[in-house]
């Protein structure tokens, strides 16, 4: 009984919350470069099949996830969060907001994310995305006011991957919570 409880409990926990195995963390962002290869670790494999997702293949791109800002404060849909800076080299990228189950969050604008092509940039090529429940000027990504959400930055056709180790190879954008009601 105890054995079954401990064992299945551990499995449930690791496949739900993920493990640190084979992850690449840059700032607030985490990726699993091996998830899109046949070298995928057993934990990621179990997670992928359990959630019913299809991981992005390595020849296609890589996905970075952020659940908290740079100061480790969990992303809160009622707060104002700014994602700014630069992204690693890639032909295209998309930034998408999901709830904790990986579903898009309904909003009247039907705006669920941005692509690198449609974003409004400053003169030096940098960008700022304002994530908030109420309308903001510039690149506004609505949260629908949900309590917890996550951001996924997908790089398509990119050199970032298994060989990437540090921020120098892959400069990720900053995430800052600038105000909470």
């Amino acid at each position, binding site marked *: *009984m*105890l*054995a*079954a*409880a*401990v*064992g*299945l*409990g*551990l*499995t449930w926990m*690791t*496949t739900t919350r993920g493990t640190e195995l084979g992850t690449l963390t840059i700032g607030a962002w985490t990726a699993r470069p091996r*998830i*899109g*290869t*046949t070298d*995928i670790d*057993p*934990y990621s*494999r*179990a997670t*992928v*099949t*359990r*959630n*019913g*997702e*299809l*991981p*992005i*293949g*390595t*020849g*296609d*791109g890589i*996905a970075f996830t952020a659940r908290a800002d740079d100061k480790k404060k969990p992303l809160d849909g009622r707060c104002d969060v700014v994602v700014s800076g630069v992204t690693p080299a890639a*032909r*295209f990228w*998309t930034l*998408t907001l*999901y709830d904790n*189950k*990986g*579903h*898009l*969050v*309904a909003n009247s604008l*039907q705006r*669920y*994310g941005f*692509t*690198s*092509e*449609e974003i409004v940039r400053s003169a030096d090529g940098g960008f700022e995305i304002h994530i908030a429940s109420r309308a903001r000027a510039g690149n506004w990504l609505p949260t629908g006011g949900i309590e917890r959400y996550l951001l*996924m930055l*997908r790089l*398509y*056709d990119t050199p970032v991957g298994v060989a990437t180790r540090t921020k120098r190879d892959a400069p990720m954008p900053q995430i800052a919570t600038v105000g909470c009601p």
Partner: protein
Amino acid sequence: MIRILFTIIAGVLLGGVVHLVSVLALPRIASEDAYSRLTPITKLNAVTQLPVADPSDTLMPYLDPALAVAVCRYDLSTGPIKLSVPVSQAYTSVSFYTRNDLAYYAINDRSAGKKVIELDLMTEAQHEALPEDEDVTAADRLIIDSPSATGLIVLKALAPEPGLMAQAQASLAASSCKVQVDQPTAKQAEVPMPAPAPLQRGKR
């Protein structure tokens, strides 16, 4: 006292074993994996467009709403698959997954280097059975070995902005994925009796 302690330690150790076994077994026993979710809405050995991701859609988690996605669920038991995907204006990619959702190959429009991504997908046995001669003449066709007889091919086309989604979908609609009924007929005259050779090799 020692007995209780012993039971607890044994329980935790056994728990570890249960944990490892269940993690390793999950990919095989999971009933809600991507392949199973896609099975009812996709045709076998044909391209099916998926609806664009939106909040009411719970088909699969973490779909990219900026991409038009189409799926070809394949079964190689009747023969190799011929895949052809015209490249869209922005970005097109083709990813291959086994029956157990393992990503084993992916290619994008730029690495394919052509206006149409053309691939032959076959099992290793079918690849070996291919006459060598044809391998050479087909050098400009990419041959992919599938580790499993069934699986998924996922075609993606990027819509750089929401207004271009229809265009991305249209480019995927022009793609095809079908069982290669015959080896290219023009070549067949030059290559007499190619099939039995690997069989004999196998018997020895």
